[in-house]
């Protein structure tokens, strides 16, 4: 027998955010790909080129947002997939914190990289 929902979990929020971030990612990911593989050929990427791009505030903030949404989307996606697969109880809590930590670390590291690529600081 199925049970009533009773925890504090914000019901469909994770589902909803997954779609919301996806919508955003469609645009940015496509942009990212085109820019760094077609416009600028991947093999020709240099520190200087990257820095030049990153130093524009607009580009920088887009990339930061890209990083955050992508990380959230990816990590949340993995978590959702595992939950749907029936992971429950302690393993679930463990996975949740593991993924959250990994996500945060990724964002922190990503931010550090981005900052290193700017001449803003």
């Amino acid at each position: 027998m199925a049970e009533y929902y009773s925890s504090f979990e914000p019901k469909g929020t994770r589902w909803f955010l997954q779609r919301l971030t996806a919508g955003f990612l469609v645009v940015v990911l496509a942009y990212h790909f085109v820019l760094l593989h077609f416009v600028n050929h991947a093999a020709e990427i240099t520190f200087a080129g990257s820095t030049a791009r990153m130093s524009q505030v607009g580009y920088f903030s887009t990339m930061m947002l890209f990083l955050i949404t992508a990380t959230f989307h990816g990590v949340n996606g993995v978590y959702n997939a595992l939950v749907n697969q029936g992971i429950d109880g302690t393993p679930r809590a463990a996975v949740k914190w593991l993924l959250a930590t990994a996500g945060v670390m990724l964002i922190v590291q990503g931010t550090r990289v981005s900052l290193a690529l700017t001449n803003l600081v």
Partner: protein
Amino acid sequence: MSTQIPEQETETETETDAEQESSQTRRVSAERTRAGMDQRAEDELSDADETVELKVFRYDPEVEGKKEPRFDSFEVPFTKGMTVLDALIFARDHFDSSLTFRHSCRQAICGSDALFVNGSQRLGCKTQMADLEWPVRVEPLPHAEVVKDLVVDMEHFYDQMESVEPYFQTEELPSGELDEQRQDRANREEIKMSTRCIWCGACMSSCNVAAGDNEYLGPAAINKAYRFAMDDREGEDMTEHRLNIIEQEHGVWRCQTQFSCTEVCPKDIPLTEHIQELKREAVKSNLKFW
């Protein structure tokens, strides 16, 4: 290979050989005295222009020789308009009366005979033999425990159906003795398809998510919840309550929009569409709090 068991082809004529002594003795003598049906089968087979082979999953926890699942082959005379159910009935009545399957209405309304036919969930009575590739392979519904032959345990399915409060609830009924509640046509149209469910369980059996998560409400139960949640006669508080039910941990969010439920539903209910609509309704009603 759809069912991971060794396929053991046993022609009906030689079936007794394969069986163990205890059941063999009774089978042999039963066969002899049952000559009547055998004879009829032979006549019909020789009269028939065409015959078709059925491969049927067999299992019985009590009978020697059937404890290990196997497939039996039956050759039945093909007639125009013959359904899978007709073929099974012919095989049962003429060759092996222990062949077990549920069926009743023969017209796709009782939902008893959802089977796994040639690799997909279908109602035996609603599936024309002529539309299938021969030989036709008939198995019990996947993802359900087999009680015997083609009969599966439906309890779990019923539990899921009944867990969504599948009954009309309203506080305000019209006061006049013979007054009905009003419902506009558009609203009845909206719920129409969802009310057609015959509880056959085909959708549930076809859903990979339901297979992996036993607590998942499953497409049929969610559709049942939809049928009430979308019915204007119930009132807003009730809709809220219904959304709470389907939003639970193993409710709508589990659905991965695989569509196989929608594809197999013999009543053509757009299950995925209904599930998605409920997801959106749920998100909408949650956003209200923000």
